[in-house]
């Protein structure tokens, strides 16, 4: 504290002090939480749950809200944004940046003025209620089209646009990371879009962490964690979700290096063919559109290119010379 006082007296400029402090603090985080609120998944889970070790949506929300509050309390400069993933739409529920920018100029600590209706939890729950009623409106409007997966690719894209906005600001910006709470199974239609988002996150150096709350693993999010350097975890005892969240996902990126975090298990990088959706070891790839097939076809079903029957093209034309050493 002495150091800070000295700096303040020598600098005499509050803004500059803020900048200096921010520069010193490498643990300021921007956490974007992507919550799967797909009703099909949660209802199914509630129906299927047998033991006491499973949690329903309300319990899940309590754990997650406590965790989000913890993130905001860990460092007063931490930012939080919450995105809900539904089965028909995605939407921002809360961003801690939005309210702060107004009150910051006065120098009043915003937490003092907070009453019950302005806490982050209250805002998130209100946002969630709005979101669910909107989803319901969609449902009645469009009838059930048999689509049960959640729109992970959309919420990841929105999260990355938000990260991009924060990174556009003046240099001392928080270190962003994305945390997905996912329960619904992967949707193969979204494969390309999810992969695009993952590669973009990799380029921005934003890790995508994921915490699986469903019964099955997600190959998409395993790949996301592997490629972007995030953590993938499926808590074995969901009733203690909050403990897992605090121990694994609450630490900032800088401190992560000193922790023993869950080790990545084997990630399956095998592809599945477009014709039968089988996972294959070797396959044929169309040289025009990169569609994957398990057998040799005469024509590509995706782009319509016809393949010549000459077998020579399967063998790589380049003869490999054996070096002598």
């Amino acid at each position, binding site marked *: 504290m002495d150091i800070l006082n000295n700096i303040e007296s020598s600098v005499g400029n509050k803004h500059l002090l803020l900048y200096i402090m921010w520069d010193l603090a490498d643990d300021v985080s921007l956490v974007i939480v992507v919550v799967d609120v797909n009703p099909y998944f949660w209802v199914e889970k509630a129906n299927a749950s047998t033991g006491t070790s499973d949690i329903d949506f309300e319990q899940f929300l309590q754990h997650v809200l406590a965790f989000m509050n913890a993130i905001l309390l860990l460092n007063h400069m931490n930012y939080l944004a919450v995105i809900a993933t539904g089965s*028909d*739409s*995605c*939407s921002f529920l809360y*961003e801690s940046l*939005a309210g702060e920018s107004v009150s910051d100029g006065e120098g009043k600590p915003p937490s003092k003025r907070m009453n019950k209706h302005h806490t982050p939890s209250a805002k998130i729950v209100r946002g969630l209620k709005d979101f669910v009623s909107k989803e319901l409106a969609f449902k009645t409007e*469009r009838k059930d*089209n*048999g*689509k049960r997966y959640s*729109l992970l*690719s*959309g*919420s990841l*894209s*929105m999260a*990355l*646009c*938000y990260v*991009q*906005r924060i990174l*556009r600001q003046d240099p001392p910006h928080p270190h962003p990371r994305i945390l997905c709470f996912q329960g619904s199974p992967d949707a193969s239609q*979204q494969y*390309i*879009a999810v*992969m*695009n*988002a993952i*590669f*973009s996150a990799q380029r921005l150096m934003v890790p995508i962490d994921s915490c699986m709350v469903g019964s099955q693993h997600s190959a998409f999010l395993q790949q996301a964690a592997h*490629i972007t350097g995030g953590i993938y975890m499926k808590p074995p005892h969901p009733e203690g979700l909050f403990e897992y969240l605090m121990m694994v996902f609450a630490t900032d990126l800088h401190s992560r290096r000193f922790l023993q975090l869950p080790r990545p298990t*084997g990630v*399956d*990088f*095998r*592809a599945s063919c477009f014709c039968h959706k089988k996972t294959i*070891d*070797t*396959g*044929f*790839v*169309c*040289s*025009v*559109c*990169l569609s*994957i*097939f398990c057998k*040799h076809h005469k024509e*590509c079903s995706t782009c319509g*290119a*016809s*393949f*010549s029957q000459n077998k020579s*093209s*399967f063998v*790589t*034309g380049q*003869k*490999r010379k054996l070096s002598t050493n």
Partner: protein
Amino acid sequence: MMEAPAAAYGVEDDGDMEAEEAGRDMEAWERAYADDRSWEALVEDETGLLQAQDKVQQQRQHRRRVQASSGLHIQRGIIRYLYLIIDLSRAAAEMDFRPSRLAVVANCVEAFIREFFDQNPLSHLGIITIRNGIASRLTDLSGSPEAHIKVLRGNLECAGDASIQNALDLSRSFLCQVPTYGHREVMLIFSALGTCDPGDVLESVRNCKEENIRCSVVGVAAEIYICKLLCEKTGGIYSVAMNEAHLKELVLEHVAPPPALAEAAVASLVKMGFPQRGAEGTIALCACHREVKIGGGYTCPRCKARVCELPTECFICGLTLVSSPHLARSYHHLFPVPVFEEVPLDAKFSGIQELSKVCYGCQQLLPLAGSKVTGVRLVCPRCNKHFCFDCDVYIHESLHNCPGCESFCEPQT
């Protein structure tokens, strides 16, 4: 337009009028400078930084540039075999770029190689250098960026003359052997102002055309007729750099896969292997370095040989080994995001009752009629969501997903 500034700076009034009158007599570059008055477009913001006043115009200009370069649905050559020819003649040692042309070119090439493999993971690249009138191959066609960069960094001396013919003949002899489905390309970074050839260079250009090799040239010094002819004949792009930053921009333009000509490559099914990653802690001999490695590595599904990195070709059976993310990395070239359209601020947008206040992607405030926020407002033609300029750039250049389209379920067909 001239009235307001003239009133504000009364002293300069006469000078401006004179300049205006003399406009016809001035040289083109002087005239443009006087008329443009670019300094007036700058304003100081509250933190003292200079900001361009006409943000909307700038953003429109940027979008026009991008739109011009992005065509509609065109087939692209995804599997590329590219020889990068680097001119290391004595002209490359000149110091008109700082610290020297050679150093600038080397940095550009390094960035290019990394970016090339990032965007074209199934492609192969090799490096050829020209020195003392002789072309020599530095690296074989292969898929590892680090190997190329390492060899290139160790071979940066320049001497003698440049020979386009030798370089073309050498690269052609290697590109003849690549599989028929591959797109053959040569990219030349040329510093010299002439070529010193043993025979007829035009004959080499004809041969390249016959072999369907697309040749592109990035000039470091000035435009040269033979380079222009080469690119014209073979369907490549010729560009000449004006400065260091421009050179880098031009070189990196070649990273995206070029539009493919139907006759350039035969469509075929390529047999590929998708190896699984070996478990941690297993000990195996790797086929690529012939060393004992612990953990990691991938096993070829056909011959069970161990390789260290993907994508590669199996060193024993020659099967192309890739992982599914490598294929996925190229898909965005094939399914591009539609170009967003600009929304006029005053008119009500059809379909949506009122204009949304914030950008759908980043929640930033969007410009409205009469609001303080400046900039353009854009709409995705497919999902009718509104976006800010920055998100538009990010979505089309890096993300390749429209957040709006992705977060609404499409009616099933």
